[in-house]
Structure formats: C-alpha cells, structure tokens
C-alpha cells in the first residue's frame, strides 16, 4: 500500500509484476475483444464493428498455488496522503493501520515518498493504538531515502516474496463466531430494501450479538430521522452522547458545504418509492437489527466491543465499506435493490439482492437473494439463518463471493477536509 498518491505508480508496477505469478488475474476477455475489433477495423473499416459479437466472459483464473495458504497478494492505491489537512493525513494512517492490523491480513509492504503529510511515524503510532505488539511483518520503503526507483522496488519485491513464503506457513484454523466482525451496508437501495434484505441482515447482526461477534452499521447521513431509536438502544450515556455529537458535527459540515442530510433520498430512490429521507433511513437502519448499540466509533477507529457498533462514515458505498473493513470487518454484507458490483481488497463483500428479479438478471454480481421474504415464502428470521450459514462458508474459505471472482477490489479512504 502507498502512504501517499505519489507512490501509486510504483504500486501498480508491483501489481503487474506479482499478478502473473501470484495474483488473481482478471479475465482478458476485453483485451481479446479489442484485438478482434482492431483486426476487423484494419480489414473492413468501422461498418464491420457494429455487428461483432462480444465473447463470453470467463471467470477469473485462481492464482497459481505457489503459496496455497494465501488467498492473494493485494495492492491498494488511493489519492490521499498529502496536499490535504493534517487531520486527513492522520485519518488515512489510521485507516491503513486498520488494514495492516486486520485479521484477514498476514503482513504488509508500505511505500512512502518521504516528505508527505502522512508520515511513517504517524502510521506506526496508529498501528500501536490498535495492536501494541504487531506480530506480523511490516516492510516500509521510503523512496527519498533510496537511490533509483528500481533499487527500491526490487528490494520491496524480494523482501515481500520472502515474507509471503513465511506467511504461507500459517494454515487456516477453526475460529469461534465471536471472532467474526461483519459490516452491514446497503447501496443502490429500492423500495424493498427495508422489507427483505435489510431486516434479514439485521437478524444476522442480532444473532451475532448473542453469539459474541461484532457487527458494524455505518452511513451516518442515512441514519438521519432514526436517531432517537438508536440513542434509546445505546448501552451507556457516553455512547449515546458520542453518537449525537458525531451526527451533529457531520450535519453541520454537510450544511457548511452547501448540502445537507435532507438531500437524501436520490431521484432514483424517489422513483422507486422511497419518498422521504426518514423513510429511507428507517429502512436502512433495519440492517442494524434490534440489538443494543454496544459502541459508537468515529472514522477510522476499530471495533473492539462485541455486539452492534455504529461507525461514522458517509453513505457513499465504497467509502463506507473501506471504513468498515478498516474498523475490522472480516466480511461485509451488502444489500442492493438496483445492483452494484462492489468488492474490497481484503474482505469478501457478499451482495444480497432485495428482490428475485435482480438476483436472476445480475447473477454475475449478486451472491444471495432475499426475494423469498417479499413472496411470503420465508420469514426474515429464516432468511437471516440462511445468510449466516453462507457467511460461515465464505469465512471458512469454502465459498468465494462474486466480487472475489471478478477481482473487484474497491478502496476509497474518506476525505473529510479541504484540499490545500
């Protein structure tokens, strides 16, 4: 991962280099298609192009099993680390520390330019906050302290390769459900989200709370209108006060930027029957089930208490999922009524359709269908139990999500401040 966007190009060079031998490689269907179109154009001009059939898309080839115990080598890029506020630089280091300390991650290689706001020392501080003694390899390379680029990158590759071989000695082992943290997210919602998929994952969240696991509900702008219910569920006055303070600060910032929480719902939501912000929020909040709120976290804090955690993030899909995983989510449950392909580099994102029509039409990106609730074939509780079984299969490595098969690895850290 890069500490600053200046290192993105080096990260991409590493990704290309590792992909061939060790990484998941996305299907080259489109490469082949472009090659065919280029050939047709050379032969017969633009007219022939219109009727050319699109080749069938293949599933991604699994990486060669040089390291059978590793699920993959992942490469993150982002647009932050300098040129913004110091708060944003620290928040970025906190998020990256969350990814480094994450139980799904065996080790990390970090590229730093040297002079950026997001300093290596801040990253170390943020790691110590989360894990006082990090028991995994952390390799940091600083370009301004090295010679030519290739010297730094070959060193990064060699040392990373050695650590990959060591990490491969760690085999998958059974873990209790109390070790599981699940992110709860909706995106591309429709008028059924609050009736089927959201309450179904809300039931999963309730089951996990009883079993000692953790769940994370975020998207604070989309909790506008249901604050009182969540405040009533907070386990202490301090937790409730933190929630109210974060909501107030966020709402004031939105207003100062010329927007506001009442800009929800979107035009697409309204056409689909979600006619007020509170109606959308009440449906969205069902993802959090009915359990007490154990803790409230500001971005990019990590969840430490079992039960339901509220994490302050935007409603924006990728920023919210990026933050939930940074807060420790091993798996993200993502409900959608309209369909979205999103995924995350280090945590499986299970996409759960609110209606069967979507699940059938976009079967290449949807993992599970909760339309049976709408038809009256299954209760919310039954559907939640089915989902929990699927979660366990994914957690055990027995099933892979559609996003993993597509190598869809979205990563967008939340930028709260202005650019300078």
């Amino acid at each position, binding site marked *: 991962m890069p500490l600053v966007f200046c290192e993105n190009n080096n990260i991409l060079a590493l990704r290309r280099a590792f992909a061939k031998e060790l990484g998941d490689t996305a299907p080259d269907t489109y490469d082949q298609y472009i090659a065919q179109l280029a050939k047709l154009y050379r032969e017969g001009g633009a007219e022939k192009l219109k009727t050319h059939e699109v080749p069938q898309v293949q599933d991604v080839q699994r990486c060669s099993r040089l390291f059978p115990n590793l699920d993959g080598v992942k490469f993150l890029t982002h647009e932050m680390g300098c040129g913004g506020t110091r708060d944003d630089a620290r928040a970025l280091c906190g998020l990256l520390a969350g990814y480094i300390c994450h139980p799904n991650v065996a080790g990390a290689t970090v590229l730093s330019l040297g002079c950026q706001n997001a300093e290596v020392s801040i990253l170390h501080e943020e790691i110590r906050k989360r894990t006082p003694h990090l028991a995994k390899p952390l390799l940091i390379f600083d370009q301004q302290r090295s010679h030519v680029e290739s010297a730094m990158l070959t060193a990064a590759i060699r040392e990373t390769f050695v650590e990959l071989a060591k990490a491969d000695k760690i085999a998958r082992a059974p873990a209790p459900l109390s070790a599981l943290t699940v992110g709860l997210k909706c995106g591309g919602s429709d008028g059924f989200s609050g009736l089927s998929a959201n309450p179904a994952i809300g039931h999963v969240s309730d089951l996990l709370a009883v079993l000692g696991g953790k769940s994370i509900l975020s998207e604070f702008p989309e909790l506008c209108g249901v604050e009182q219910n969540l405040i009533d569920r907070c386990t202490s006055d301090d937790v409730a006060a933190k929630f109210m303070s974060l909501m107030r600060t966020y709402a004031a910032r939105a207003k100062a930027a010329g927007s506001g929480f009442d800009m929800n719902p979107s035009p697409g939501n309204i056409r689909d029957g979600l006619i007020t912000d509170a109606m959308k929020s*009440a449906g969205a909040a069902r993802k959090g089930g009915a359990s007490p709120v154990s803790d409230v976290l500001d971005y990019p804090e990590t969840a430490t208490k079992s039960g339901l955690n509220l994490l302050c993030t935007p409603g924006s899909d990728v920023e919210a999922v990026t933050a939930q995983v940074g807060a420790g989510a091993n798996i993200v449950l993502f409900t959608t009524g309209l369909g979205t392909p999103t995924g995350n580099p280090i945590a499986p994102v299970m996409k759960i359709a609110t209606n069967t029509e979507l699940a059938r039409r976009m079967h290449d990106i949807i993992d599970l269908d909760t339309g049976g609730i709408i038809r009256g074939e299954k209760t919310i509780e039954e559907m939640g139990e089915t989902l929990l079984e699927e979660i366990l299969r994914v957690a055990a490595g027995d099933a892979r999500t559609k996003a993993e098969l597509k190598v869809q690895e979205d990563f967008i850290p939340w930028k709260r401040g202005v650019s300078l």
Partner: protein
Amino acid sequence: MLELKQYQRKAMKISPQDNIAVALTDLHIGEEVTLGERQLQLVTNVAAKHKFALEDFASGHEMVMYGAVVGEAVAPRRFKKEGRHMSGRRRT
C-alpha cells in the same frame, strides 16, 4: 416495471402502527387488497415498491412506517383518501 406477478401477496404493512402500506407488485385502481383482516379498495394505481394510504390523510398528516414517523402527507386536494398512492415530504 418489475415482473412480480408470481407474488402471492399484493401488499405489506410492516408495523401494526403504520398508516401506509407497501405495494409488492404493480396494483391497479379498483383492486381489492387484503392486509391481515383488513380489506380495502385502491382508488389510484400504485406501482410496486410504492406506498398507499391506509386511512384518510389531511395534508401535513404524519406518515408512519416501520412504526416510526417517516414524513408527512402531501395531498393535491385537502384530503388524501384511504387506498390512494402516497406522496409525502420531509417533516420539518
């Protein structure tokens, strides 16, 4: 619109306190809808996923769904009739 003809139920009232219900399939004017023991007749078309009134609404009257106030009614005339497609806005 969605192909939801196979759905056995036409509409859903989520919480007992709710005064609006959700159409699970495209519903038409004059259609009879059963919600628990209650039967009502629609006075407008209601598209799938949209809401309709379970009582007569004055404009500005609270809309309750999921057992919570989710906005207020917007009525073209003074009253919204039971069984009419619901328009609403943020409660200020």
